[in-house]
């Protein structure tokens, strides 16, 4: 037994024995003034502990997450450049492509393009990633294309928080994803499913997820508009 009645300060009465039991009355503290300092201190300590925990776990998990992301990116480059067996990373430095970063620069500060080659050493295409707002949050997409003809080779959603069951079809619905591998001509145009006129860049939107579908198409169009002028200046040759 506790030293004070458990339903102190509460009007808990069981009127009808058949009725659902009232919420268990516990040790609700009686009204007694609590100093403001104590209130602030409690929350400050709780906040500090929570923050510390998050920082510690983040320090521990971030390298693992980054390594996994890098691995996924590598796999994704091969996926969106069908036929490529190796690729090299180029960086956008001052509006031009460079194979090497300026001394002391961090790779993550520069936009990157991945140039894929097949077994014979022929260039297959160029891949790049880009994020833009979708329906919920930023959708991060990697896409591969032929820089000269503007034909899209493939697309893969790297990150998205689109609505499960609807917006997430942008990467779960193979009919939708397959359209990006069918070598459509860019710029792409989103059309309502089945309402296309047979133009070469048409992508059927997903029913119920038009915004997500349009976001993916927009990302690719904007990405190509950004990269094609840069790539037209020439792609630096490989160092022998």
């Amino acid at each position, binding site marked *: 037994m506790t030293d004070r009645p*458990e*339903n102190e300060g509460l009007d*808990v009465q*069981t009127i009808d024995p058949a009725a*659902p*039991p*009232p*919420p*268990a*009355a*516990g*040790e*609700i*503290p009686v009204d007694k003034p*609590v100093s403001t300092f*104590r*209130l602030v201190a*409690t*929350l400050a300590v*709780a*906040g500090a502990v*929570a923050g510390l*925990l*998050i920082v510690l*776990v*983040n320090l*521990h*998990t971030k390298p*693992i*997450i980054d390594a*996994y992301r890098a691995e996924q990116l590598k796999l994704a480059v091969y996926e969106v450049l069908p036929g490529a067996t190796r690729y090299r990373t180029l960086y956008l430095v001052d509006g031009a492509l460079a194979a090497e970063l300026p001394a002391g620069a961090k790779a993550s500060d520069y936009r990157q393009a991945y140039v894929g080659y097949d077994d014979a050493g022929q260039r297959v295409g160029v891949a790049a990633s880009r994020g833009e707002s979708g329906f*919920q949050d930023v959708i991060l997409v990697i896409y591969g294309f032929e820089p000269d003809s503007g034909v899209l080779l493939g697309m893969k959603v790297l990150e998205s*928080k*689109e*609505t*499960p*069951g*609807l917006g*997430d079809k942008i990467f779960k619905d193979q009919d939708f994803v397959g359209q990006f591998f069918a070598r459509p001509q860019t710029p792409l145009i989103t059309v309502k499913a089945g309402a296309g006129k047979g133009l070469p860049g048409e992508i059927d939107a997903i*029913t*119920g997820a038009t915004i997500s579908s349009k976001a993916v198409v927009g990302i690719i169009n904007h990405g190509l508009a950004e990269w094609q002028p840069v790539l037209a200046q020439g792609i630096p040759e490989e160092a022998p």
Partner: protein
Amino acid sequence: MRTTTPSQDFVRGIWRENPVLIQMLGLCPALAVTNTVKNALAMSAATIFVLTCSSVLISSVKKLIPKEVRISAYILVIATFVTLADMMLQAYAPVQHKELGAFIALIVVNCMILGRQEAFSSRNTVYRSLLDAIGTGIGFTIALVMMGGFREILGIGTFFEIPLFGPNFEPWVVFVLPAGGFLTLGFIILAMGYHAERKKAREAATA
């Protein structure tokens, strides 16, 4: 005087005081992510984890929290667990995280979890709070799977991704859209209300 036994604490949340269908708590995830059974189960699993951890922690430190700031403290605890769960899953189970990713952030706004802390864990022992959390979690799962099954069957024509009808089935797309969530919840509550009324009438007739 105790009004409930530990087994009652456990059973109560499952059906009689089902968090979603009776208490009408946690409707945000119940409406948002129940368009398939798989999503409903994933959301339930993530919620049970956070609910159980929060209930155990809060019931063990309840005496330290002044009641003026209890709600803020509960939210802090819940949000911390959600963030930790998110980061750990991302690091150690990236495939599952990809499936669950969108649900995890939603758990913070699940008022069912906050409701259990306020109504139960802040006044009861760790053991009872644990039982209550698991029972409530099971009740939440039942409600979500009911909704997910209903919506997936009508809206996509599958159950747990197994096609139920022939290729000529025209899915009732509205049921996987948000509006379908409200419709489904309405139908389920209507059915439960009708059943309760009938039961009451039967009891009155026999009395």
